[in-house]
């Protein structure tokens, strides 16, 4: 095949991929819809739609020679036509099969066949087999079925489509089966990378084109004016040369000649003036129109970036379905206001937090049908996600469930356990303050850590993201009635403005949106309360810290000390910037407040993935790089700095080196792997070959934590956990179960046995394990 054909094939396959994704998406959406629908009438309409999606996908696959996709669509389509004829009816098993097929099709579309593992190929074959068995047998004659179809199916338009598919099916079940297998082995190896794509409505693109054309006009006009200016400059230069000549003739020229020269100069000057006035007038006019054009263009571009919420939430129903299946829960998931448009960049930032909120609702909110019945609720739980436009360009997003509600006592207990608050402080908290503890990292009411939740990280992530978007997060909850999380954020991103401050020889940008006020105070206004400096602003007393101390800047060297600080010292005034982040408010001392800039924030490079207290950098007009400070980091650091000053010098330095971990695992490969991971992280590791060995070692040596496999000879992981938790001396030692058993029963057995964490090997990566261990010891 020559390269041109190859190119074409590649392009057509890319197009196919996009189309196929759409069909599969509608197919999965349709299935979820179908599951919700109760009346037979609307059900048959939906089955019809699903049938068409499958049929179109099949056609598309065939046209680009994707035999393996076609081979799945074929029996799937037949099964749907049986469903249409009511020869069989939908049941939960079928839904599961269809969803599985949907997932596999999507995988097939996105990966080239040659990269399929034998296992995947096997699953595919099994699915095809299953589909065949489910289809009522046998259809030998296409025409016969058409007559049957025409009498039974209301929708006549679909009939011709049906004929075609039936004929194909009727003649070739074995042929297709034969065709599949070689097709799976012979696919090309190349796998082109795909860029992210966005769908934009034509109505948004038209103004963009118009504006671009307008720019063209302006460009032409400016070109003309530039030529004019060049001409003026030439005239002036010529005139200057002549004037220089006249200078030499000062003594020899006659009065008449001088007068002539003078007249000539006047004319020239007048000409020049007219010329310049013309150019200036024009420039002034164009400047305003250019201003307008740029603003319009920017607005239109922002409109292009506004995408409907549906593009964000489309993955959620599937996720809810999957998780609730896993946990044996029944959940109705409703999305409201999905046609609202929000800036793409904000939507992207929202994906994670909303994901966490939904998981949270399923995991902690909604109970199993039995639990719910005991509380006199419908067995089927309900989660609603609503997007509502509010005034001032804000949008409110709420995620509510009709579940158990947040247990105040449990939150308090968890917070005390992780030492997020002290017992004294806990007593003084009001209800809102207690609920705000759930946003703190590490606080979880879950009895056990699993892959899904319980690590107490979900809500802190939500809270941080919302902070970053300059939004507000609130929670309302009532025991046994449910919980609602509300996020209030702007729909579009404002240009980033920052205040430039100087500190010793450094300069930093503080995001203007976090700056409440900038002020000068006298030293007398700073009052010390419990060893902290504070200041009164209106009714409030807020703490004051030195930004340089919080950032840990080196002391300024004497010789570089500039006059500015000396000046501020001598005048006795202290410059203070009051920052706000979410609910927190804090005042920071700086040397100098220099300027406000509109800035473009750039990320640090690849080596500096995340630096504490810094969210990025910006390049000033002078080319100088200035770090942009991360306000919520800064507040946390400030609390730490203040705490350190009070006494404890090196709390964060409790090195992992001294920590000793016992690893119980019968497989030598897994054992070595675990040992390596933990030792690399700086832990001291002792290994045991089974549960019994581990228990003996634990009795004779002291360990900070034990990591154990479940399936082991002599004493398995559950039994070992129970023995440890019942041992007087060992009961405090955290137990982490690492297992290949991924089932709810096992997780529950783990909880019963008293394990502190449960990590599944298939999802196992070292980051996950280390993170859990770090949290436990």
């Amino acid at each position, binding site marked *: 095949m020559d390269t041109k054909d190859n190119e074409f094939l590649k392009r057509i396959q890319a197009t196919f991929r996009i189309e196929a994704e759409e069909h599969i998406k509608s197919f999965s959406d349709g299935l979820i819809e179908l599951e919700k629908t109760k009346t037979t009438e609307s059900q048959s309409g939906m089955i019809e739609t699903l049938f068409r999606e499958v049929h179109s996908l099949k056609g598309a696959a065939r046209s680009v020679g994707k035999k393996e996709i076609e081979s799945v669509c074929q029996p799937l389509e037949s099964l749907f036509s049986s469903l249409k004829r009511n020869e069989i009816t939908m049941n939960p098993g079928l839904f599961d099969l269809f969803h599985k097929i949907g997932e596999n099709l999507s995988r097939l579309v996105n990966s080239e066949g040659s990269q399929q593992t034998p296992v995947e190929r096997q699953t595919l074959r099994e699915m095809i087999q299953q589909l065949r068995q489910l289809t009522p047998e046998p259809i030998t004659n296409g025409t016969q079925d058409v007559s049957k179809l025409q009498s039974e199916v209301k929708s006549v338009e679909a009939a011709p489509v049906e004929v075609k598919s039936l004929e194909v099916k009727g003649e070739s079940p074995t042929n297709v089966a034969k065709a599949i297998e070689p097709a799976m082995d012979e696919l090309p190896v190349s796998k082109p990378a795909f860029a992210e794509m966005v769908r934009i409505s034509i109505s948004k693109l038209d103004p963009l084109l118009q504006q671009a054309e307008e720019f063209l006009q302006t460009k032409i006009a400016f070109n003309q004016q530039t030529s004019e200016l060049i001409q003026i400059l030439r005239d002036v230069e010529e005139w200057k040369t002549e004037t220089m000549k006249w200078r030499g003739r000062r003594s020899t020229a006659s009065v008449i000649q001088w007068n002539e020269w003078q007249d000539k100069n006047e004319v020239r000057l007048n000409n020049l003036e007219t010329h310049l006035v013309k150019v200036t007038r024009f420039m002034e006019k164009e400047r305003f129109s250019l201003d307008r054009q740029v603003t319009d263009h920017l607005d239109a571009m922002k409109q292009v970036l506004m995408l409907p919420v549906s593009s964000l939430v489309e993955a959620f129903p599937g996720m809810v379905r999957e998780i609730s299946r896993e946990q044996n829960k029944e959940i109705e998931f409703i999305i409201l206001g999905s046609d609202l448009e929000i800036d793409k960049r904000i939507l992207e930032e929202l994906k994670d937090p909303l994901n966490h909120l939904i998981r949270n609702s399923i995991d902690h909110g909604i109970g199993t049908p039995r639990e719910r019945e005991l509380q006199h609720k419908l067995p089927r739980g309900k989660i609603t996600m609503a997007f509502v436009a509010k005034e001032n360009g804000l949008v409110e997003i709420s995620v509510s469930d009709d579940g158990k509600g947040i247990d105040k006592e449990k939150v308090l207990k968890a917070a005390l356990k992780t030492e997020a608050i002290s017992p004294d402080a806990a007593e003084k908290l009001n209800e809102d303050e207690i609920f705000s503890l759930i946003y703190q990292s590490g606080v979880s009411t879950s009895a056990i850590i699993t892959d899904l939740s319980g690590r107490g990280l979900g809500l802190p992530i939500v809270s941080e993201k919302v902070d970053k978007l300059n939004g507000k997060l609130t929670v309302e909850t009532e025991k046994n009635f449910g919980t609602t999380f509300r996020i209030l954020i702007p729909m579009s991103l404002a240009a980033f403005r920052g205040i430039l401050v100087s500190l010793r020889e450094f300069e930093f940008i503080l995001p203007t949106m976090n700056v409440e006020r900038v002020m000068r105070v006298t030293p007398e206004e700073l009052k010390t309360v419990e060893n902290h400096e504070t200041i009164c602003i209106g009714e409030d007393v807020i703490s004051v810290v030195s930004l340089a101390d919080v950032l840990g800047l080196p002391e300024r060297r004497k010789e570089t000390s500039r006059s500015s600080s000396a000046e501020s010292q001598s005048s006795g005034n202290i410059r203070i910037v009051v920052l706000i982040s979410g609910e927190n408010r804090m005042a920071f001392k700086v040397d100098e407040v220099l300027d406000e800039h509109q800035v473009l924030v750039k990320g640090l490079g690849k*080596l*500096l993935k*995340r630096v*504490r*207290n810094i969210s990025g*950098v910006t390049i000033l007009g002078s080319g100088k790089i200035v770090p942009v400070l991360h306000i919520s980091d800064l507040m946390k650091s400030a609390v730490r700095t203040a705490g350190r000053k009070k006494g404890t010098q090196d709390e964060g330095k409790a090195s992992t080196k001294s920590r000793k971990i016992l690893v119980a695992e019968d497989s030598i490969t897994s054992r070595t792997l675990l040992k390596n991971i933990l030792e690399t992280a700086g832990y001291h590791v002792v290994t045991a070959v089974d549960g019994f060995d581990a228990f003996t070692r634990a009795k004779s040596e002291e360990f900070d934590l034990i990591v154990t496999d479940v399936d082991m000879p002599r004493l398995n992981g559950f039994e070992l956990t129970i023995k440890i938790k019942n041992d007087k001396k060992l009961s405090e030692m955290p137990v982490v179960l690492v297992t290949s058993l991924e089932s709810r029963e096992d997780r529950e057995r783990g909880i019963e046995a008293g394990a502190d964490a449960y990590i599944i090997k298939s999802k196992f990566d070292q980051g996950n394990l280390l993170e859990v261990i770090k949290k436990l010891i």
Partner: protein
Amino acid sequence: MKTENRVLLKKRAVEMAKEPELKTEGSEYIGIIAFTLSEENYGIETDFVREVYHIKEFTALPGVPSYILGVINVRGKILEVIDLKKLFNLPEKGIGELNKVIILHNDQMEFGILADVVHGTQIVAVKDIRAVPYTVSGIGEEYLMGVTKERLIILSAENLLTDKSIIVNEEVI
């Protein structure tokens, strides 16, 4: 022009037009950029060098490990600069007039390393690179490829670029 001059020039031209002797098996030789760090001579493979950039100013960042000198603006792009002297525990010399940054890159990573003086490129035969004498090795050993007869210490750009442990990823909790 005199004939003898013409002959001489001709001879020179022929000499210069000659293709440089082909270093046959490619893997036997590597191109390196030689530079000085605190009086010691180092070399690093040219394959991983994007450019040598003259550093006029840099911005130090608070809260980063000491081996991160700071960030520089390379034609509008932000780039981190590593101070190998800190990584290798070499005596400090301070940033003088002649400071250059050697920009290293591969598919995943890109950063600059600070050099006191950059001497230029040269070709080194792989067989001439010996293991580092025991006494010299120590901190930074994992980044050393070896040392030549001329006591040029060859750094492994690849090991530097792929070392996950020098990546800063720190959040305030």
